[in-house]
């Protein structure tokens, strides 16, 4: 084996590798001031995570990918358990079972791939999916990607993990690195290792759309900011999977671009919320209000990232979502099968609906935390905690306005040349948007003399924090809607959690087996006899 074969340094690897380095650097800067105790352990596992991520991205040999990939599960487990308590220990356990378990799928999928093609490298000749086994191979590897990136059905660890773990860890693993790796491998599969048929495309599209809708609906009703962001970390993966499901050059580019954007704004959001947690000591909506006055910089960065994730032009989230839509439309034109067309329509609709629901839930976040009456005085986070969010939100703007001049040429080099059919000129649009804002501002100044401000008056009663109408209360209504009520109730009982369901199922078997193992010697002797009789029967049939 030559070295050139085992490792791969094409544009795709280099692009993703660059972002791995970038995110590691940013999170490292943030952690300097955030992680105060157990520093050695934290940086040790972080460094190992960094190295094995690079290993995944630059490996070409399938076994090597599996080894690095599997090791990441352990580092994630150790990072969650850094300041271990009962809650974290449970969540870490669940996380590692899902992520590590999916490594089993990955291994099996890869071994099937080797069996079918007798090739040990991911970039060689692609395998056409035309049999049950080849589909199984693709699907199993894709499942591992789903678990890492957080797509239905293996997404359930992300929101729980986001809720309990420290902000930099969440920003580092599920929000940026795991997305980079999961989507990288999926792109690699679709681009170099497999040629998808209509059925596998449809499966990807359906899973993608379900992810978008289900996760965003859950995000709407959360009380905990980090958990809300966790659900969005899942929901956004749906868009990427939609893009990849198109499996056209445009679709792949869109998925990859959206992944990069998502990593940028999602880690910005987590870091911003980390600042809120550090300064105010809480991430529950009911304890937070009006922080914008005291933490203007954090507010600004979170706002930019929120607008990006909701797909508001001219930020980066809009551009990549736009490309995903384009990819879907293109596939719609290309496809000949009626079912696939139907699936594409469904995905388009859910992508659009999901986008608006995302906006709704981020209104809740920004208004609930940063606007309104302040509860108590807090201070802005220290300078080092603001550097990384600042750079990330700057990237949100740059990749939005100058998308065609900065990042997209590189993506085109990595994936292949693509063209968008729709008309979107971000620079002109930005000029118009800025013009609009300026106009509004001028009107605001001109008319300001005629306005007067006075404190809120409610019949002479004093306003206290408890009685104030909170933004988050508006969203309670969603939970009470007739159709959704039961679904939410089931979701809260973890009915849709594949982990819990599998657990319940295996406990049925375990109960039965336990019943058989009653500890009585004669019973055991009877089994031996039965076993011996069975063996005699087989050999003397």
């Amino acid at each position: 084996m030559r070295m050139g074969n085992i490792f791969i340094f094409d544009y795709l690897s280099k692009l993703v590798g660059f972002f791995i380095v970038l995110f590691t650097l940013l999170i490292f800067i943030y952690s300097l001031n955030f992680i105060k105790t157990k520093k050695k352990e934290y940086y040790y596992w972080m460094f190992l995570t960094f190295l094995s991520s690079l290993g995944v991205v630059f490996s070409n040999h399938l076994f090597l990918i599996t080894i690095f990939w599997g090791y990441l599960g352990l580092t994630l487990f150790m990072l969650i358990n850094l300041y271990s308590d009962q809650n974290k220990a449970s969540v870490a356990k669940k996380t590692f079972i899902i992520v590590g378990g999916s490594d089993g799928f990955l291994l099996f999928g890869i071994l099937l791939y080797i069996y079918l093609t007798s090739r040990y490298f991911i970039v060689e000749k692609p395998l056409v999916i035309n049999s049950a086994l080849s589909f199984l191979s693709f699907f199993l590897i894709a499942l591992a990607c789903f678990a890492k990136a957080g797509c239905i059905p293996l997404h359930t660890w992300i929101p729980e993990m986001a809720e309990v773990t420290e902000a930099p860890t969440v920003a580092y693993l599920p929000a940026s690195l795991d997305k980079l790796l999961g989507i990288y491998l999926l792109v690699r599969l679709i681009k170099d290792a497999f040629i998808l048929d209509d059925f596998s495309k449809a499966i990807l599209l359906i899973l993608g759309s379900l992810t978008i809708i289900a996760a965003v609906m859950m995000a709407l009703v959360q009380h905990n900011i980090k958990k809300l962001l966790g659900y969005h970390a899942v929901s956004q993966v749906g868009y990427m999977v939609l893009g990849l499901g198109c499996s056209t050059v445009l679709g792949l580019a869109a998925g990859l671009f959206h992944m990069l954007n998502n990593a940028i704004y999602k880690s910005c959001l987590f870091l911003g919320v980390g600042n809120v947690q550090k300064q105010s000591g809480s991430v529950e909506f009911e304890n937070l209000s009006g922080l914008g006055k005291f933490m203007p910089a954090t507010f600004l960065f979170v706002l930019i990232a929120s607008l990006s994730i909701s797909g508001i032009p001219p930020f980066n989230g809009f551009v990549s979502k736009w490309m995903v839509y384009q990819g879907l439309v293109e596939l719609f034109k290309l496809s000949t099968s009626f079912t696939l067309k139907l699936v594409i329509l469904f995905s388009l609709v859910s992508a659009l609906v999901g986008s608006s629901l995302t906006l709704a839930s981020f209104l809740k976040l920004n208004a609930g935390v940063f606007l309104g009456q302040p509860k108590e005085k807090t201070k802005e986070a220290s300078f080092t905690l603001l550097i990384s969010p600042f750079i990330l939100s700057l990237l949100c703007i740059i990749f939005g306005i100058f998308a065609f001049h900065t990042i997209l040429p590189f993506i085109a080099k990595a994936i292949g040349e693509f063209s968008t059919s729709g008309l979107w000129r971000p620079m002109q649009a930005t000029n118009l948007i800025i013009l609009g804002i300026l106009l509004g501002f001028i009107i605001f100044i001109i008319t300001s003399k005629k306005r007067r401000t006075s404190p809120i008056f409610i019949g002479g009663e004093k306003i206290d924090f408890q009685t104030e109408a909170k933004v988050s209360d508006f969203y309670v209504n969603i939970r009470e809607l007739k159709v959704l009520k039961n679904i939410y109730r089931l979701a809260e009982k973890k009915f849709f959690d594949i982990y819990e369901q599998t657990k319940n199922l295996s406990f049925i078997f375990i109960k039965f087996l336990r019943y058989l193992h009653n500890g009585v010697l004669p019973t055991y002797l009877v089994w031996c006899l039965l076993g011996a009789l069975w063996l005699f029967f087989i050999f003397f049939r």
Partner: protein
Amino acid sequence: MTFIPLFVVLPLLGAFIISFVGKYKKCFSDIFTNIITLTLAFLSFYSIFLLNTKSSLYIYKVGGWAPPFGISLVLDGLSVFMLVTVNILAFLITLFCINYMEKFTSKFRFYTLFLLMLAGMNGIIITADIFNLFVFLEIASVASYALVAYGIESEELEASFKYMMMGSLASLFILLSIAFLYSYASTLNMADLAQVLKEKGVNKVVTFAFVLFLVGFGLKAAIVPFHAWLPDAHPSAPAPISAALSGVLIKVLGIYSLIRISTIIGINKLFSNTLMFLGGLSIIVGVLLAIGQMDLKRLLAYHSISQVGYIILGLGIGTPLGVSGGLFHLFNHSIFKSLLFLNSGAIEYTIGTRNLDQMGGLREKMPITSATCLIASMSISGIPPFNGFFSKLLIVLACIKSGYIGYGIVAVIGSILTLSSFMKVQRYAFFGSLSKKSQEAKEVPSFMKLAMLILAIICSVGGLLIFKDIGNYFIKPAQEIIVK
């Protein structure tokens, strides 16, 4: 080679001397036992060296009698492989015992029994005579019955009784089938027996004897449905003995003997399929029973059943790849399972319980135990880059390459369930907040730490054996004995 009998003679002699002298000088038995096991470990490494540089087969004729008539001792690829596995572990376990067995009275009796068991195991491995194999098997078994009952509490005695009943049943089956073979072939020497069976052909008598062997060795190896004694017996013994029982005894008495016998009689399709089915069944049943356990050692014991299933599955496939995978997993399992039992012993040593409910947060108090246990858990769950991953990889690859996709899926599912069960161990024992009992826990004494650390290092680098350059000296010669 004149040193071959030393593998049996040394521990036997040691047992004899310790039972007389150990009573009067307390530290004598510690030092003496460790010297013996260390020597044996070196000897076994030396035999790897010999085997790979000079001849690939050494025969020692006991008493100078020529092979078909006298008993001969043989050193070939497979027996050296097993000798290394057994003797490394024996040394590390005795190292662990120096501190651990302090809490028991009359330590020298323990060492006597342990060396007796070791003599039995080494004897099984090097003998080339099937009746001699039975004798050594009984020596090892009887010593292990006594060791299981070593704590002489009611629980231990009950477990030992059950173990003895099932064990004697197994011995009877084996003895009966040896008698059948002898009556048919009129010889007990293994090589000679193989020759005679080849000439006379395999008829119903041989098949009958073979099924009896399968039941007998299946009982010794704890393959489902003959496994029921194991979860009682292994947890009841003192932790280092559990490590020896789960780590090497079941493999030498069960799997190794079964392999030897089957190379004599010849492996056919039906036999392979039966082994694979039993292996797959053991994987799933063992791991499912382990998931529900809250007793740490019992949980580990159930995992032994499941992991033996992997070994049997790999061997049952019968291709060179599958057999290598099975043997590799045998070696790996003996390393990480012993380590896990030693970890459980370390926990029991310091906080006096093996109930997972009463542990918690031990990572803060026992960093070495916690780190080594994490490595062992990762190994057994097949997380790269630890050794268990590579052997499972070989087994699953062999399954798929031979077209047994279903068994491959069973192996992968077993691996996922193993992971979830060991996540539970980690979560309850080492992570989470400190429990009442673990408040006063502290790290164990140095010899125990040393033994655990060496095992953890082997777990971390053991995966290197998958590379042809290294594995060719160790696993390949053994595999070639089974599949030519």
